[in-house]
């Protein structure tokens, strides 16, 4: 039986040219 919900954590890193990276994390749930 397949799961109908999957909780994942997204991690985004944005590095502007010539600057230090900015990191953001957030949990979200994928549904069927």
């Amino acid at each position: 039986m397949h799961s109908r919900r999957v909780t994942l954590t997204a991690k985004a890193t944005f590095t502007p040219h010539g600057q230090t990276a900015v990191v953001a994390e957030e949990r979200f749930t994928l549904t069927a």
Partner: protein
Amino acid sequence: MPEMTTVCDRRARRGAVAAFAFLSTRQTLSPGHTVAAAGTGEDGKPGGVYNEAAETVGEGEVSVGFTPHPGTTGPSGIAEGQDVQAPGTEPWPSAAELKAMLLQQLRPTGKAAKIKRLLKAGGYVSSFHAPSAGTAQLDWYQLPRGGHLSARRPKPVLIAAGRVTMPSAGSARGSWR
């Protein structure tokens, strides 16, 4: 006399003197070069233009002077220690603004974000908006119970990853597979 103009990094480089340091880390400057930095003041109003001349003070060292360009001083002009930026450009976003922007785009949305569609398409395609040029990396992890992204154990499982390079501010499409 050779002359160069640059746009300065907002957070890491402050003031026209820092503009010279920024340049010197990337380009070889010899005595006699002039660095010009232009930008806006803290109030967002257009600032002035400053020129700096380099002179050699010792082996491997270069000293710069800080002399406001005539006629550019004033309440909205650049002062030493202030951020500098090319005139006519948007203000650089702060780290907090960038983080807020990332948080808004982290969560997949729409019908394409359903499990069934993701499996069928083999990934997720979305547009990414950035307020400045740069590179965005977005990873999706599944964390075991009690796990954390920064923890080595239990190890997070990478589910999908994508990378978008933005040559300038705006939107670009990226895929996460």
